[in-house]
């Protein structure tokens, strides 16, 4: 079972979270070409090793998290809130 250390709630089972997909995607501007948008929406790298992904603590604090997780061992390197302001709040509360 994957255990995710939510910065607000503490370490919880992955069953409390929902997977949100690749966190490294930067969406292009609205004026960007069709090709750029296609790539941003559909093309994903099949990474072996650590990848950045988003998880939603849907049965908890409902915060969106950025999780750095290994696809081979499920080892988690870092967890932080997606929203930069929330990140500051969490850091200040430490």
């Amino acid at each position: 079972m994957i255990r995710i250390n939510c910065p607000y709630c503490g370490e919880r089972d992955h069953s409390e979270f929902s997977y949100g997909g690749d966190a490294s995607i930067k969406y292009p501007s609205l004026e960007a070409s069709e090709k750029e948008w296609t790539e941003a929406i559909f093309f994903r790298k099949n990474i072996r090793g650590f990848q950045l992904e988003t998880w939603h603590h849907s049965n908890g604090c409902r915060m969106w998290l950025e999780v750095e997780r290994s696809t081979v061992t499920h080892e988690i390197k870092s967890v932080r809130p997606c929203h930069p302001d929330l990140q500051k709040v969490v850091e200040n509360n430490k």
Partner: protein
Amino acid sequence: MKSKRLNNLGKIDRDKTLNFTWDNKKLSGFEGDSLASALLANNIGIVGRSFKYHRPRGIFSSGVEESGALVTIGSKDRRDPNVRATTQELFDGLKASGQNAFPNVNFDLGGINNYIGRFFAAGFYYKTFMGIPPFEWGKGTTIWMLFEKLIRKAAGMGSASRLPDPDSYEHAHDFCDVIVVGSGPSGVAAAIEAAEKKLDVILVEQDSLVGGNQLSENDFSTSEIFNQLKSLGIKVMTRTTAFGLYDNCVVGLLERVTDHLSIPDSTLPRQRFWTIRAKHIIVGSGALERHIAFNNNDIPGVMTVNASKHYLNRYGVLTGEDIVIATNNDSVYETANELSEAGANVTVLDSRTNIEIDSNKNFEIRKGFVPYNINGTKKIDSLDISKSENINKIDTINCDQVLLSGGWSPAVHLLSHRGVKPKWDPENACFIPSDTKENITMIGSSRGLWNKDDCIASGVAGATDALNRLGVSKTNYFFPKPGGWKNPIKPLYEVKYKKSRSKSFVDYQHDVTADDVRLAHREGFISVEHLKRYTTLGMANDQGKMGNIIGLSLMADLLNKEIPEVGTTVFRPPYTPVPIGALTGRNVGKHFRPLRVTPMHQWNIDHGAKMIEVGLYQRPWYYPKKMKHSVIHILEKQQL
């Protein structure tokens, strides 16, 4: 086999007699017995029939690796098939019966399979019934479907009850700093070391008593250790098996809460399925003794050496009168001594020649000898022996029991669940665990340590490793190196006697013989995974706990490779079978999924509606009023 109960020895309570039935025969045992030890005390040799050939089978071991004494416990809706008699505790009123036999295990009509056995080589069913010549034009599957039913009936194990399970099961969760699996010398040492450093420790033991293999020692007191562990605040969970390790130090446990009670408390669940979230896992799961493959090595009366010691010192049962011990390592000599002191006539065949053994010579040691054939069908009459270099008949020993020890295999199963491949240790002829980055430490004989002091040292080292990784302390530690016998082990997996068509069993569970492995090689199934699926080596209840290494070594021999080059199959959870009921827990009946109700739900029920499921909701399907069929109703109304 002539096994009997002794008046001394054992950790049983001779004042408390327990009555039980075996195949409708009334027998008795004592408090503290396992079903297997009680059967042995009553001199019952045949307890089962084998999977394919329906050969009579006895008790091979004293633990979870058992593949012979699989019995059915209970009756009606509580009928539980394929229970290992060796791990089932005896209770008053226990009903046990043999399985895979008609009419019973002593006389089984299916035994005919043994004589036509050469038609049942590996892959026989698929080769034959997938397409019988006149019908084979593309209709193989149809033919197979037809025959499959018959085959399933003839080859198999016990059958489960078709009635709903009357017992309840529970899911439970717990957290801890360190979980220690196994309460042998190393596990106890690790748990104590960690608890003294103020860590929250859970100790898991699959047996009813704490002690691991020390329970087979005469002067061992389990209650002393149990009290010491308790006084340190360690949570000791007995009758609990750690069946699997999962990501992020999550351990799955199965606790058998009432399986050992004759009248269980109705408020208790039968079993509990635990999910433990730990910070560090220490595994001291011990090692399993292997047998040796040679002709008729499955006749009732064959057992592993350590099992015999276990029955002697834990249950006060002497498993034979004239005992031959065949070995290739040092671990058997203490047992030989104790058996002969208990009154048995013991001969040790050691396949090695240049060895030094200090013993008080109560028994005969024949160096350089190996067994190659057992004479007898339902019991052992005699054993043919030979020099280990050139297999030729030298002598026949009259005996009623043959104890085997082909070396020990560390139980690396739990680490294997995490995808860590074990590495081959040629010096000790076994697979030993590799290191892992995860917070898992292997200790004791599951690291390949055969010496008790080494095991204790490794337990302390394992706990120190845990403390270091959890950042509690920074202490140097080292693990003793694998091994610990005075004389090195000499690999001995199969004794092949060329002149006979032999049934030398590699894996007792599914009747896999050495010839089956050779057939698989001839037909090109040389990868370990193919070998497993083609011959069913290492499948079913015991998952190849005893026979896997022998099968691998035979394949390595045929391929002229070393065992590590052939590889090892990956062990997957569970370590021992987990009932579906325990996995389901309370989620049965109306708790299987929630019922959502609409505001009109009750009105519909009140008006006698037949409901139909719509997702989680129910809505009325129809109202079976005393109304006539609607067509007739209309016809009548219209007066047509």
